[in-house]
């Protein structure tokens, strides 16, 4: 068996350099995704959604309002407002320079002065993500509510004055409007914010790092489909006839594959550590000693074992690369997505949040996170070992069936 294991190592060594180099390229790609996600979802000050305002802009009050929104309002921390014409805004939206634009129709300011509000068209790219849905769905409602109630005050006062035979002067209406504007600009003062910190929980970026690393490792099986997926069982039968059982054959192959995958995983984590990326997304490691950091590499073993066992199960069940590759992608990307490896699991409904840890991708992600923050470590460790044993059992059964000839190449 030792000879068979050494033979498998040599076989993998031929492909290893290409796989390792391309895996690191893959890791760079994921680093790119991580930076895009982090920039969209974290840090309130550096990344703003840019919204253009177009259309009729000649009214003084309208221009004052937009200036106030840009310069004084708290929304300006998250949203940058630019003024331009509609055609330019369309081109900027297409080019991705703005997140959305608002079209102010002609006569808007004039009619608004009499309490009639024309509709503003809010245009964005369909399927937009990040801040844009928040602005589109929630912020526009906030603006509509504020406008409704402030105008109830202004026109309610006008009606009350007229009811006692008076005349609501322009000054008194404007002064009340300015009182409302004062509150609107200072509305953030009604609440005080206390940041509790993440302690040993993960930051959002740390969560994404663990999730994307999990998807990356699951996808790496595609790179080895060419090596391991085969329909010919001649070698397996020959080894069996020489006393090397299906289990020992698999152990030799799995051992070599595990070493390759572990090297890749350790390289990815190592490069992230040395480059400072790991410390920036997982602040908990800043407090770790050298031994604790080294121990992280040992802790990775169960997650890598699970992922390798999954790959092997797919390789063994498939007798051609098409279904092996497609199944690995279906699992890594779609099941990985639904189990919280790409969008955080708390984005999803409760039923998926409950199921997620009990999927292979969810268990691997949870375990990777637990390696850094210790939360539910033994639960996820047990899940990883359980899944590794399950997939190992499936692989062993499939190999036995194939080399004993009961189902010749027909799985």
């Amino acid at each position, binding site marked *: 068996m030792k000879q068979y294991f050494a033979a498998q190592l040599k076989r993998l060594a031929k492909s290893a350099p*290409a*796989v390792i180099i*391309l*895996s690191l390229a893959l890791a760079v790609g994921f680093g790119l*995704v991580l930076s895009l996600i982090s920039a*969209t979802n974290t*840090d309130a000050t550096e990344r703003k959604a840019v919204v253009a305002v177009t259309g009729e802009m000649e009214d003084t009050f309208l221009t004052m309002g937009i200036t106030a929104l840009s310069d004084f309002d708290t929304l300006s*921390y*998250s949203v940058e407002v630019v003024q331009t014409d509609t055609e330019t805004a369309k081109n900027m939206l297409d080019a991705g320079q703005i997140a959305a634009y608002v079209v102010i129709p002609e006569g808007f300011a004039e009619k608004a002065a009499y309490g009639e*509000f024309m509709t*503003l*068209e*809010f*245009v964005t790219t*369909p*399927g*937009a993500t990040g801040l844009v849905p928040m*602005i589109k769905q*929630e*912020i*526009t*409602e*906030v*603006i*509509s509510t504020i406008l*409704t109630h402030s105008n*109830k*005050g202004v026109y309610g006062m006008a*009606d009350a*004055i007229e009811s*006692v035979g008076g005349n609501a002067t322009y000054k*008194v209406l404007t002064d*009340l409007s300015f*009182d*409302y504007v*004062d*509150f609107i600009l200072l*509305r953030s*003062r*009604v*609440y*005080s914010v206390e940041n*509790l910190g*993440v302690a040993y929980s993960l930051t959002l970026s740390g969560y994404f790092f663990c999730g994307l690393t999990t998807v990356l490792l699951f996808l790496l099986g595609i*790179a080895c*489909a*060419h090596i391991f997926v085969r329909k010919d069982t001649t070698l397996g039968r020959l080894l069996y006839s020489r006393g090397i059982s299906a289990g020992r054959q698999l152990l030799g192959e799995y051992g070599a594959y595990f070493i390759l995958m572990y090297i890749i995983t350790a390289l990815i984590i190592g490069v992230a550590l040395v480059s400072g990326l790991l410390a920036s997304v997982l602040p908990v490691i800043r407090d770790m000693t050298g031994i604790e950091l080294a121990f992280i590499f040992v802790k990775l073993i169960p997650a890598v074992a699970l992922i390798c066992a999954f790959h092997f199960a797919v390789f063994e069940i*498939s007798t051609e*690369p098409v279904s*092996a*590759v497609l199944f690995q*992608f*279906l699992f890594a990307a*779609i099941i990985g997505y*639904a189990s919280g490896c790409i*969008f955080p699991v*708390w*984005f999803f*409904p409760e039923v998926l949040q409950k199921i997620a840890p009990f999927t292979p991708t969810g268990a691997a992600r949870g375990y990777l996170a637990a390696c850094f923050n210790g939360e539910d470590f033994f639960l996820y460790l047990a899940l990883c070992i359980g899944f590794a044993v399950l997939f190992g059992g499936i692989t062993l059964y499939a190999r036995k069936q194939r080399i004993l000839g009961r189902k010749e190449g*027909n799985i």
Partner: protein
Amino acid sequence: MKKIITWFLMLNKRLFKKPGFIAILLLVPFITLAVTTATKQESGVLHIVLAAEGGGDQAAREMIDFLDKDTDLILFTVADSPEAAKAQVLSAKADAAWIFPAETDEAIARFLKDMDEDNAFIHVYQREQTTMLALSTEKIGQAVFPHVSDDIYLNFIRKNVPSLDSVSDEVLLDYYQKTLLDVELFAFDNAETQAAKENGYLAGPVRGLLSVLVVLGGLAAAIYFYKDEDAGTFAMLPISRRRFVAGVSQQSAILWVALASLLALFVSGQWVGFGLETAAMAIYVVAVAGFCTLLRRISGSGRMLSALAPVVVVLLIAICPVFFQQTAFRFIQVLLPTYYYLNSVYNPMHLLYMAAVAPAYWGLSLLAGRLGRKI
């Protein structure tokens, strides 16, 4: 012609003899339906817990009731006490907790005297500052404003409108309430499809993932062909015929995976219309076939193509609008067929762009064939 059809049928039979391939074609719509059904339930990008000190007064309860409604993006839940709400934030079960005071009406009156931040009356606990959380606090303004607005109205009248001194607060508030102004200020562009509206934020990436699956189907078929090449399965055929076999087997896999993806889009409610979906997928299949042929000829071996496949997948996911819209790598986006397909659903002009780019892939693959690997 008869020989072409015979080869086409034989190569498809080769794929369909594998139960694994049939299982994948069935799994695609099933998994898609399961995921999109599950994601339609109550969820939120943010989870914010609401609580009031001592149960809160009527104003606090009205604000909490107002906020505790379903939105696609924010999941609001109500905790029994401020301590329980804070505990959820500390244990990362919630992103933030908004705590309302016991006497909200009095707190509002105190605040309106000078609008000083020292008189802030709602306490927000959050784990870390993020842009989404910063934007979500605008909902506090939306909940508070109706309760503040009538106070501002009354305060102003009492200070500045002596002609209304004889009118009671109740009558003045009556004028305020009776003013019927329900301002729906914004209308949204209708480019957002009905499917996107109904299925929500979380089901959005499904189309992108299915489009990547189609590309992967082509690459996987090419890997399969190379395996057979290495095993000498087609050794008796001349190079030109092997080129044909490689192309047809690749295109067959792409076609069947594309059909499974279309079915998945239909059953999961992502379908935008028969004409647009079939036209977009038909052009996409041709473009992907050219793209995969180009990659097959550039890689030159099954080993290289296997190693390249996950890189292509990650590139498609990161650069194309599968999960995120971004324009930082537009110069790479325009090289990828998935970019055009995903945009063509909302902007049919991209169908034309995709139709223009498809021949470019085929042209480049012919060039690669002349310069290097012929198959």
